[in-house]
Every structure is written in structure tokens, then in C-alpha cells.
């Protein structure tokens, strides 16, 4: 997916004007939040679980090389081929070579943000392979040729009317807005693909170092299909997704499913360990784990930003963010959206290219509160802002105004003078100072300043004495 993060400001009015998207996004976010809150209320020790998970992730991220080596070793002992990909080019090329070696024509895929990040689909399609998204939401947006607008519900910006029209046009079925009918149509089409696919591609929610296995959660069953039916299973895993022991899995799954969709557990959880070359056992003959770096190591160099690697991609921060609820996922211009996206996109794409994203926040802190692994999200947003300002990437006049203010605020005389001048100039300048005032009325600076009132009060009370 080609990043459009540098067009953030320019595109914003378009997104804000899209009433359907806004309604759907807001509604879906509130529903997810309500369910999440119900599930969390059932767990009195929720805060302590967050703390535990945070500590485990900290330990892994601080010793990532060691855990990666261990994971690779264990997985290989199980008969899995492990490839450590430095970047998108390496990852895609490796999988393409496997496809050629094995005469792969059709690939079925389950939802995987990292494959979006790597541009995997387009890479394969450009080289003549058919790639079919099998998660219903991803299937919908693939038909519509759109990017996902949310982590766990990629088509949430679409209404059922839009989906009905889409299916009628692309799948040639009679028009129906009934989600049951639409889902059945997708099931029929996709089942054929599952049964005929040569390769199944998935992501992985967690990599378990202790035994070199991966865990994938899902509700539809398409992950199981992709990882069981085709002869080859390829799983892409971000290097930061490791957890040390299989005994850690219940903790992380609990935090993930309750935060993401307000479920105690998703319908299916697959713990995948090895290939099954025997035809008597259901499962792929060959299994590949692609451990993807793609700039994740860069995060490790910054002691604040490396906390962003703790992320388990639950999407709760999206759901709770008032900005996300109003601008929707597409406005963020790339695969990672909401508060976490606003922090990591500048890292992945460069501060210059994504410099507006960390500023698209009211710093309400709801994201930090809701994050199941206690990433200090709004602090990291502030941190990214500072880096962007220090890198001289913000509007020059903003910096001048801020410097002017600091200078004036250091002298009470100057500060008062500025205040009185400001009152006069306010009406004239408000339009030009900040887009903030385009949709808001700034409070009018009163003629009588606090210090004037105070002086009067003091004189009065002196008088009384």
C-alpha cells in the first residue's frame, strides 16, 4: 500500500465530510469499547495483568536478538524453515522463490497487517500469481480495491448497502443487504479458493520462543483453512511478536481478545508447530516462518520508542481515540492507524513523510489507559512531536510564534502588554494564526485583566481595614 501520510492535512476535509464513514466508524468503535469494558469488568486483576504483560514484553524487547535466535533454533528443530528478512524486498523475494520452486499459482491469505506493510499482495500479483484475501473484511476491501480502515475490522467504514452493491457487481449475485446472505456468498466463493490453493499465507499474533511455535487467533475459520489446506503454509511474524514461554500465552491471549473485540476467546486459536509431510495427517507439507525486521530494529535504538514494539495489535487504542472515531482509518494514510499508527508510521516511513500524524491528537490519554500492555501512547505521541519540531519539520512561523511567546512570558510587563495588544488584534489575527479558529470561536480576551481586578480588590479590602 502506497503511503499517503504526507497528504494527511490535505485529505482531512474529505474524510471529515464522509458522513457514512464517520457514522460507521463511531458506531463500531463504541460497540467494541462497550464489549471491551464488559469483559474487563469481569477481571478484577486486569491492571496487574497489564503490568505483567508490560514486563514480559520489556524483557523480550530488551533481549530481542537472543530470543530471536532461540525461536529460530526451536522452530527449525520442528522441521519449520525460518527466514529472517531484513526488509520488505527480502521477505517478498524469498516467498516468491518458494512459490516458483513449488509451482504455486493461487495463494489464499488470512488477515495480516504485516503483509500489508510489506506490500506482499501486490508484489505477488505483479509476478503473475493470484492472491485472494479470505478474511471477510479483507475480502470486501480487496473487491473494492481499498486499503483497510481498522486493525480488526478492515471494512468497518463500509455500510451494508455499499457492500451489497459491491457483491452484486463483483460476485454477480442478486442484490441483498442481509449480512447473512452476503456472508454465505463470500463463503461459497472462498471455499473453492481454499480447496484449490497451492499456498496459504498468514500472519502470527505471537511467536512462542520456548517451543518455536506460533499462535494465531481468529473468528471466521479462514486462518485454519489457510494454514491447513494448502500444501505450503507461510507465516509472517514481526520480530517484536515473541513471548518467552507457552505458559505466557493465556495472559497475552486474554489481554488481546478482550481488548480487541470484547471476547473472552476468539472462535479459533491455532498453535502451529510443524509441517505434516504425511498425507494421513491434515496439514501443510511445508511450513515457513518469515521473521520480519523491516525497520523494527530502528525502534530498539530509542529507549522511549522501543516501547512501541510491545504492541500486540489489538486496536483498542483506535476504538477509544476521539480523533480516530471522527477521521476514520484511511485518513492516517497507511496500514497502521489510530494512536499507535501515529507513533510508528513516522518511524517506518520517516519523520518528514508522516510529520502531521503525531499532532492529530488531543492528548486525552485514553489510549494509554486502554492499552493492554501499558504502552505510554500519548507520551510517545508527545515525544514524536518533539522530535519533529527539533527536526525543523513543523511550519516555521509556528516556531517563531512559540519563541516569541516564551520571550514575552518571561517578563510580566511584556506579557501584560502582549495581552492588551492581543485583545485589540485578536479579531483581526485569529483567522490567520491557526486553523484551530476556523471551526471554533476563541474566547474573547477581556478588557479587565485579572491583575486589574486583583488590584481593585486589594485596595477595597485595605480601605475596609
Amino acid at each position, binding site marked *: 500500500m502506497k503511503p499517503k501520510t504526507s497528504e494527511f492535512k490535505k485529505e482531512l476535509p474529505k474524510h471529515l465530510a464522509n458522513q457514512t464513514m464517520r457514522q460507521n466508524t463511531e*458506531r463500531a468503535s463504541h460497540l467494541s469499547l462497550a464489549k471491551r469494558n464488559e469483559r474487563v469488568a469481569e477481571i478484577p486483576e486486569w491492571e496487574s495483568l497489564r503490568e505483567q504483560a508490560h514486563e514480559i514484553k520489556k524483557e523480550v524487547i530488551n533481549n530481542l536478538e537472543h530470543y530471536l535466535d532461540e525461536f529460530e533454533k526451536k522452530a527449525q528443530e520442528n522441521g519449520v524453515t525460518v527466514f529472517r528478512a531484513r526488509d520488505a524486498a527480502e521477505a517478498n523475494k524469498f516467498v516468491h522463490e518458494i512459490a516458483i520452486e513449488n509451482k504455486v499459482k493461487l495463494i489464499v491469505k488470512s488477515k495480516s497487517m504485516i503483509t500489508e506493510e510489506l506490500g506482499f499482495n501486490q508484489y505477488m500479483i505483479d509476478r503473475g500469481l493470484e492472491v485472494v484475501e479470505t*478474511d*471477510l473484511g479483507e475480502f470486501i476491501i480487496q473487491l473494492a480495491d481499498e486499503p483497510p480502515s481498522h486493525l480488526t475490522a478492515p471494512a468497518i467504514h463500509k455500510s451494508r448497502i455499499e457492500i451489497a452493491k459491491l457483491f452484486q457487481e463483483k460476485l454477480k449475485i442478486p442484490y441483498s443487504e442481509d*449480512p447473512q446472505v452476503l456472508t454465505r456468498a463470500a463463503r461459497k466463493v472462498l471455499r473453492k479458493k481454499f480447496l484449490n490453493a497451492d499456498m496459504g499465507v498468514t500472519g502470527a499474533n505471537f511467536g512462542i520462543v520456548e517451543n518455536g511455535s506460533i499462535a494465531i487467533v481468529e473468528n471466521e475459520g479462514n486462518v485454519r483453512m489457510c494454514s491447513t489446506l494448502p500444501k505450503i503454509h507461510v507465516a509472517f511474524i514481526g520480530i517484536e511478536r515473541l513471548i518467552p514461554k507457552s505458559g505466557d500465552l493465556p495472559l497475552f491471549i486474554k489481554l488481546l481478545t478482550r481488548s480487541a473485540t470484547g471476547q473472552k*476467546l476468539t*472462535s*479459533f486459536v491455532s498453535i*502451529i508447530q510443524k509441517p505434516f509431510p504425511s*498425507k494421513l495427517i*491434515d496439514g501443510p507439507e511445508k511450513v515457513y516462518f518469515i521473521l520480519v525486521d523491516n525497520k523494527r530494529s530502528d525502534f530498539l535504538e530509542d529507549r522511549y520508542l522501543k516501547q512501541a514494539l510491545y504492541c500486540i495489535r489489538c486496536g483498542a487504542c483506535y476504538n477509544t481515540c476521539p480523533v480516530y472515531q471522527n477521521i476514520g482509518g484511511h485518513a492516517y494514510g497507511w496500514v497502521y492507524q489510530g494512536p499507535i499508527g501515529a507513533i510508528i508510521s513516522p518511524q517506518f516511513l520517516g519523520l518528514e513523510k508522516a510529520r502531521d500524524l503525531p499532532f492529530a491528537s488531543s492528548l486525552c490519554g485514553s489510549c494509554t489507559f486502554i492499552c493492554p500492555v501499558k504502552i505510554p501512547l500519548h507520551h510517545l505521541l508527545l515525544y514524536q512531536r518533539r522530535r519533529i519540531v527539533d527536526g525543523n519539520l513543523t511550519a516555521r512561523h509556528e516556531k517563531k510564534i512559540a519563541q516569541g511567546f516564551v520571550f514575552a512570558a518571561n517578563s510580566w510587563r511584556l506579557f501584560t502588554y502582549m495581552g492588551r495588544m492581543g485583545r485589540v488584534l485578536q479579531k483581526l489575527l485569529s483567522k490567520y494564526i491557526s486553523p484551530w479558529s476556523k471551526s471554533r470561536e476563541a474566547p474573547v480576551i477581556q478588557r479587565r485583566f485579572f491583575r486589574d481586578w486583583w488590584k481593585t480588590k486589594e485596595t477595597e479590602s485595605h480601605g475596609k481595614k
Partner: protein
Amino acid sequence: MEKNSEKLIERFKKEIEYLSGNCQVMTTETLSDQIVNYITEKKFKSIVAEENGFLDELNLNGILRSHFTSQLLELRRSGFDETAYRSKLADADFAIASADFLIAETGTLVFLGKNHLNQLLTLLPPSLLVIAGLDSMISDLEQLYHQTDIEEQSSMTFITGPSRTADIEKILVLGVHGPKELTVFVTDSCSKGGS
């Protein structure tokens, strides 16, 4: 049934029902009749059944052979090619399998890879019946990792309710790619699942 088991099974039932699944508790003696009644009621046209130690002890295959010969699709692979095997599973409308553990807190069924070589059975057919012993009930997912049966090297699948999605306007739809209907028969047989 001891008190703790009672609480757990009640919790398990409640969770499964919340997920639109079904759960019935029965003695091993009545299992055979229950299965026959269930299949007859539902009018399934093609049945596939797992084969393992637990289900052999319950004589599942025998029950199915005597009452539902025409509907039963024999799955034994030696002599059958993979395409035929797959299309049988894809066409079947009903599957019966066993589970190794039941988790009360979440209404989850646990399948250890080593005991379930034909896992497509619990994935392809739209209606699934799972049989498990009451003594395989544990309280929560954390407990699973304290069980001695869990080997370090073991693939696993957890099934919690039927397949579902809310991708269209957050409206719940069951039976996307996996089973739409899930029923669990819990028996008070003595042996644990699998082997």
C-alpha cells in the same frame, strides 16, 4: 457429580450457550441414543466421524454404522486419494469429533494435535458435534498449561463457539468458513480424550 464439577459444567454450559452453541450432559449409557436422536432429528445427509481411542471406546463408529450406513462417509485414507478425502469433508454436512479438554471459564474445546490428525473435520462441515468426558473439564486457559498431557511439542487448536464474523457493520453472522452449528455432549465416562 461432585460439587466442583457441577459448578464447572454449569459455567461451561452457560458460556457455550452465550456463544450460540449447545451443550448437553449425559451418562455414557445414554450417549448412543442421544447421538442417534440428534442425527435423526437434524436429518443430516452425510456424516464424517473422527477415529481415535476415546471415540473407539464409546463405539461411535459402531453406532454410526448400524444406524446411518447410507449417510456415513468412510474416511480411512489408505487406498483413498487426497482429493476424494477432501471433497468428502467439504460435502459433509455433519462431523463428530472428540475434545481433549473443556475449559469452563470460556466455553472452549481444546484439541491436542497429536490426538486429532484429521483436523479438517472440525473445520469444513457446517455442523459439528464434539464429545468429551466430564473429567476433562478444567477451569480456565491458564490451567491447561499445568496439565501433564500437554507436551512441549504439540500443535493445538482451541474452539470457542461456532465460526463468526462482525465485519459487516458489526452485525454478528455465524458460520463464515468454519462450523455454523456447534453442539457438545459431555459424558461422565472415565477415560480422558485422545490416545
